[in-house]
């Protein structure tokens, strides 16, 4: 009955989230502030007759939050237990790595959906931008693809923290922003220099953001971009899971896992 243990992790996440101002700030407050700031930028640019660029920014902002919140949830969720010196307690229970990661991924999705819905509502009611313009099916597919990518990044960061300890914990907040320019969140890939363009096309979210921008004028599903992104995400996810297993084994081998709690 693995769901019982997945439920345990979700329960703990829920208890921590509702009692931690930091989590509430990181997840909901920053998302709200971002949408408000980007909303005003959108309004300003729209008045400068650059309505296309303006829409790209707000659209990119909302979709980016899917990646940011999901990845944050996976990576920082483990840190709460490391900081409380509770991580080893969790893993000396009959909890498997699969269950732990499954719970972390589910938790990411659970936090992301309401947050993205709220900021989408703010975008609609305050800035008159309707995210559903890109199509509901598209939105669902984009959500899946962006979540998959965020899972891969989150799991990779978690692997690094388990292996090297808390000294690299800043990656849990910072590393994801490396992908913001590389995946062309706010602008077309075409404006990137050739080298970065090549890197961009190796990253699944690039296809999602490109398809999302195209969806503004044509909301039908771009199956080619969606499939490429999905296939890429599966490859990245499998690599991240392998990497996590490898680093966890290494961490246990050199005694770092037990030392993670100080």
């Amino acid at each position, binding site marked *: 009955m693995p769901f019982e243990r997945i439920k345990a992790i979700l*329960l703990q996440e829920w208890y921590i989230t509702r009692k931690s101002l930091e989590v509430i700030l990181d997840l909901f407050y920053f998302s709200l502030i971002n949408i408000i700031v980007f909303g005003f930028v959108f309004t300003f640019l729209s008045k400068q007759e650059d309505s296309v660029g303006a829409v790209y920014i707000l659209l990119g902002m909302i979709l980016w939050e899917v990646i940011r919140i999901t990845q944050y949830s996976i990576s920082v969720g483990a840190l709460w237990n490391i900081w409380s010196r509770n991580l080893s307690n969790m893993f000396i*229970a009959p909890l498997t790595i699969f269950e732990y990661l499954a719970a972390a991924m589910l938790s990411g999705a659970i936090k992301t959906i309401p947050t993205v819905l709220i900021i989408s509502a703010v975008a609609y009611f305050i800035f008159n931008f309707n995210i559903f313009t890109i199509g509901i099916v598209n939105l669902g597919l984009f959500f899946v693809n962006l979540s998959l990518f965020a899972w891969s990044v989150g799991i990779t960061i978690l692997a690094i923290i388990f292996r090297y300890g808390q000294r690299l914990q800043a990656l849990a907040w910072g590393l994801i922003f490396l992908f913001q320019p590389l995946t062309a969140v706010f602008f077309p890939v075409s404006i990137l220099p050739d080298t970065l363009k090549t890197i961009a096309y190796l990253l699944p979210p690039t296809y999602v953001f490109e398809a999302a921008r195209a969806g503004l004028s044509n909301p039908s599903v771009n199956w080619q971009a969606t499939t490429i992104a999905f296939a890429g995400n599966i490859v990245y996810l499998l690599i991240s899971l392998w990497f996590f297993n490898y680093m966890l084994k290494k961490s246990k081998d050199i005694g770092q896992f037990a030392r993670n709690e100080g």
Partner: protein
Amino acid sequence: MQNSILEVKNLTKNFGSFTAVDNISFSVADGEILGLLGPNGAGKTTAMHMLLGITLANGGTISYFGKDFLTNRQYCLQHINFASAFNTLQGRISVWENLLVFAHLYQVKNPKKKIMDLVEQFSIHSFLNNRYWDLSTGQKSIVNIIKSLLNDPQLLLMDEPTAGLDPDVADKTLSFIEHLRESRNIAILYTSHDMEEVTRLCDRVIFLDHGKIVAEDSPLNLTKQVGLATLALTFDGKKQTVESYLKKEKIPFTFVKNYLVHIQTEEKKIPSIIFDLGKHIWLTDIDVKKPTLEDVFLEIVRGKTHAV
């Protein structure tokens, strides 16, 4: 012969060229309390971490209930638990919430009732809804022990559970551990630096030093290996009388003061020494210091005992 709950064979752990645990073998029987002792850096914690699966061994095997730990990790972990003064629970959430999370992790049937039964048993109602971080050290220690009992373990691994506790709470914790063994017949693997509590609790003791087992026996038998007790006699009379008697009997002694002598002797000879000396001088005070597990510990650390 009792069933073996835990069987460790040739367990070894190297960190680079440093051998933290060096080919150790031991077992814990059903209902037994086994003490794992040794100076800092002896390998106790590393051994404990390997037994819990959070550090990987380089060699050897660990079996719980006759099943190999590596290939039956979940089964084994479902039937053991761990309590330590050094591992804490999630600080931001309440005691009740922490216990509920762990009850689900151990798939406890009717988890709320199970927790409430333990809450009753330990009388922790008053801080059940407090944040774990806000508890005193003693309260945290009790909650850690409650967490470790949620799955009704057959073997409990305890790493210095009384560290940092005041004597009153430490004594209550020890009494509870004694009660636990009596009422549930739980086997316990126990590490501590407090030799008195080890003597009080443990049926058998293993001393580790530099990763190796250097002594293994009951606390009583280990103290016998140290041998001599110290008899401190304060007397009113001539020092020469005492000195000549002890020299004649070839008993080692040291005069601390002209009226106080420390005599090293076997415990069984103490009554006759007192009787003989009492014929010639007036003994004003008698104090006997029997060898303790602490003496064994010190001798091992200082390299005098090599009994295995």
